[in-house]
């Protein structure tokens, strides 16, 4: 469940405000310098002031009726260009989906089907949105049909907004259409035995801490797995993983009166053991305030199981147990809510019970499962993420088309999208983190240093020879890193919009951590893009082809 990410709204807004402020200052400076150099200081300053005044007026004083007119015009124009034909292509793809999902069998899990729907939707709608947004305005300028619009009492800002809204309307229709077809296909095609996987679990995650094999606070071990997502605890030792879930009350119990917990631990064997029995773990509840340790039960590990029921542990309200230090003593009873919750906090302790075998755990590997939500809603939210991503393309593409020609704008938007989707942006963030944390040092160096090391077959750690050439390389790399630092705040991370992993893995798409960040990101780009688009269209020579 590594796909689940947290979102800090305060930090995000602060970051946006800083970047926006820098951009406003930079934009204003650029405009000022341009005006002064072309018209002299006095006239330049006056022209800049006038432009700023008109600009602010046109940006903020807009008439919805006129925007609507431009929107309708944009939609009509796009329909005339047969943009909606893409729906037919999509339908065709689904008719032959079986060709591309060849391992379709009665035991195929639901996940690949969900992924197929989202991936296909993305790949079909993305190029269409790109072309629609990037070519509309330049084509109008080229055909001079833009004159029929600008000669009307309509502001340039309204044209930009109307265009964006028009394309967004079309994208919305298409997403609704293909999303609907995709949903029907999904429900019909997923094998009967995997239908139970089309759910929307609502997890509540806790915090986790570990005890090492001696029982001291510390870390668990790495068993040599290249993927270090999980750490492993040795069986029959004092190694434990302790989860704490907060804010619980009686209301969190399910209708059956139990608290549902779900796990996704991984087993690692150091010897064959009993081959047809899974590695097991014990579950204990701890209330430190009351000095209460309640051993509850033992469960097998169900790693990689797509079943939503097998890894489920239903904790009854009333628990019977024998204390750990008095196994032969009298059986006792505790109440889950009254005795085990400590100010709404539940502490759960997990230990592997098979000697010399290991269980791998990560923070998200155990969660409390609240009542499931309808799968349709989760699917809808997943599609919403995709829709917001396409709107982002509309915003960027339309803005680009106000100052670039169609092909150039397409290349720019495509480039930004590729950086945002392919993981290049994450790579850039990692490199910059290293750059900041290590005071300018990045393993393997910047782009030029990496190239130098590659062609000279030099590894990443060896020091570079000290000569004027390498000093120059380092200086240029430093400059590139500085530019990247600035760009980092501007380049969109389109992966954040992609919430299909939640839907495909049977989880509800969380509003706060997945939908809200996408909406805020879109708004965050929309505002500067709208302003930039307005000024660009205002200063653009519309006679130019």
């Amino acid at each position, binding site marked *: 469940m590594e796909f689940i990410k947290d979102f800090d709204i305060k930090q995000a807004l602060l970051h946006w405000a800083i970047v926006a402020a820098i951009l406003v200052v930079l934009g204003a400076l650029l405009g000022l310098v341009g005006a002064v150099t072309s018209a002299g200081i006095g006239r330049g300053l006056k022209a800049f002031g006038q432009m700023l005044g008109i600009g602010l007026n046109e940006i903020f004083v807009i008439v919805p009726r006129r925007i609507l007119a431009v929107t309708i015009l944009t939609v009509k124009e796009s329909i005339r260009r047969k943009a909606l034909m893409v729906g037919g292509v999509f339908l065709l793809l689904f008719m*032959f989906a079986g060709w591309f999902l060849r391992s379709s069998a009665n035991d195929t899990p639901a996940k690949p089907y969900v992924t197929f729907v989202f991936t296909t939707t993305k790949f079909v709608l993305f190029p269409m949105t790109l072309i629609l947004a990037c070519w509309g305005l330049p084509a109008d300028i080229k055909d001079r049909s833009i004159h029929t619009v600008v000669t009307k009492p309509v502001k340039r800002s309204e044209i930009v907004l109307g265009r964006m809204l028009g394309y967004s309307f079309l994208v919305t229709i298409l997403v609704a259409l293909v999303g609907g077809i995709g949903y029907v296909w999904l429900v019909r095609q997923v094998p009967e035995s995997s239908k139970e996987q089309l759910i929307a679990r609502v997890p509540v995650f806790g915090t986790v801490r570990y005890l090492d094999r001696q029982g001291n606070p510390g870390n668990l071990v790495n068993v040599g797995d290249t993927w270090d997502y999980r750490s492993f605890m040795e069986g029959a030792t004092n190694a434990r993983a302790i989860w704490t879930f907060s804010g619980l009350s009686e209301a969190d119990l399910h209708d059956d009166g139990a608290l549902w917990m779900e796990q996704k631990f991984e087993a690692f064997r150091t010897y064959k053991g009993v081959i047809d029995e899974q590695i097991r773990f014990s579950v204990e509840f701890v209330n430190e305030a009351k000095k209460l340790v309640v051993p509850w039960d033992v469960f097998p590990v169900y790693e990689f199981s797509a079943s939503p029921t097998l890894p489920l542990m239903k904790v009854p309200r009333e628990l019977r147990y024998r204390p750990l230090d008095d196994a032969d003593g009298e059986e006792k009873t505790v109440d889950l809510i009254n005795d085990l919750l400590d100010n709404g906090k539940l502490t759960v302790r997990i230990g592997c019970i098979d000697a010399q075998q290991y269980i791998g755990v990560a923070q998200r590997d155990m969660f409390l499962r609240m009542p499931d939500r309808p799968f349709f809603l989760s699917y809808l939210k997943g599609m919403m993420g995709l829709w917001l991503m396409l709107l982002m393309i509309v915003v960027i593409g339309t803005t680009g088309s106000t100052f670039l020609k169609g092909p150039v704008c397409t290349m720019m938007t495509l480039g930004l999208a590729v950086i945002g989707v392919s993981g290049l942006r994450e790579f850039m963030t990692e490199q910059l983190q290293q750059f900041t944390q290590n005071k300018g040092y990045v393993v393997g160096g910047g782009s030029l240093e990496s190239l130098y090391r590659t062609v000279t077959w030099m590894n990443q750690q060896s020091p570079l020879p000290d000569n004027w050439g390498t000093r120059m390389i380092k200086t240029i790399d430093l400059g590139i890193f500085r530019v990247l630092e600035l760009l980092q705040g501007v380049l969109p991370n389109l992966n954040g919009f992609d919430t299909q992993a939640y839907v495909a893995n049977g989880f509800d798409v969380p509003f706060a951590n997945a939908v809200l960040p996408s909406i805020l990101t879109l708004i965050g780009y929309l505002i500067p893009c709208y302003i930039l688009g307005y000024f660009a269209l205002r200063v653009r020579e519309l006679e130019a082809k």
Partner: protein
Amino acid sequence: MNNLNSFQRKMVYLVGILVLMVPIFLLGSTEAGVGFKYGLARLRQDYKLGESSLGKVDPASSTFNVVLLGFRGVAASVLWQQAEEQKATKNFAELAQTVESISLLQPHFHKVWQYQAWNLAFNVSAECDDVKDRFHWVKQGAKYLLRGIAANERSPELQFDMGEFVGRKIGRSDEKESFRKFFRVDPREDLYAGKADPDINPNNEDNYQRAKTWFQRSNDLIEAGEEQHRMDTILMLAYPYHSTRDYAQARKDEGLLDAETTSAWQQFYTEWTEAYGKKEFMSPGGLIYFEAVTDDRVRALCAKEGDKYPFEDKKHWVARYQSTANYRFWRTRGQFEMQPTVQEATKALTVGRKLYFKQELSASRENIEKGLREMKLAIDTHVGLTNNDSVLTDDDDLAELILKAILVYQRVLDLQEKKPLPDDFPLRAEYWDNPSWSHKRQELEDLFRRLSS
């Protein structure tokens, strides 16, 4: 430029197109008498280079490759990387889909099928802790390979791999006990209602019997002239017969010592000596076959080739090939095991061991005594008849069976009468006191001590 009008120009283009279509038609035809002798389509057909001659043509695969224009290689590389990433992050459901996409791009690249099928059946399967999940991934690998075979019907290696999956992976892995059972009764009760998964076991056979079918198909292709680069052909051709032996041995190991097991050993012996043993191979010493076990047969071989190769040369090459395939050992083993008395003796020894662990000491002792007596008789008879004592010296499985029985017997004797093993105890001299088997004896004594403690 010219005096032709638009219509005339179009007519000229049309005539040009028609003229150019004539050589295309002739070069492309495969019909005898119509196409040129060396027409491209004809050559493609003769050298089996056409896609349809390699195996089933997949419309999705063709669509993919056309749509990708020249970017098939790039797309395949990206997918391979994705597959590795998904394997590393244990995203197995999507890995299964990614490997399908790779094979859509490279349907006739055998290594793709082999590598990814092994990836699923061996690597992914080993990641799972639940033995049912492991079996699921072995099946996924096998089903993937089945699709590879459909796309490459003329590849003996893929058919051979399928035999390996069904035979060795199911029958010899740590989970063999469960896997062999699951092969006939799939653990997904909800999907297969207590029957085998028809995709991998359509006739509800034992895994070794099914493996034999695949090995046989591989052999048929090799014998029809298809190339294989897996191993020495004489070894590869032996696999269907080894599968019969594996079947008999598996039944024996599982304690199923009945007429079916005896019949399986008999079948193995017959196939080994009649089918495999009589296949002719070309060696540096001319034509040879494995069953040329006597000088007379070797001389007959020399005569068949007009004494082109000297008798000693021929004999040398027969022996060398026999040694490569371990032919004589398996021949003797089959001959020995197919005797009903050997099965009876094995049964008595197995039952005797089981009775010991149930603490039925007297019955255990009785069975072991009987078993060892019968086994000694069978060995002596066999050695006397064949003048070959390799069952005594080379047969590891037989040695283990006898040493285990003696270990148990010795323990029972100690518990009941506080007496050591008698000097004249059957097979004591041949196995218990034989220094050649002392290492094996030590190993089994340690195991027995652990099990008894």
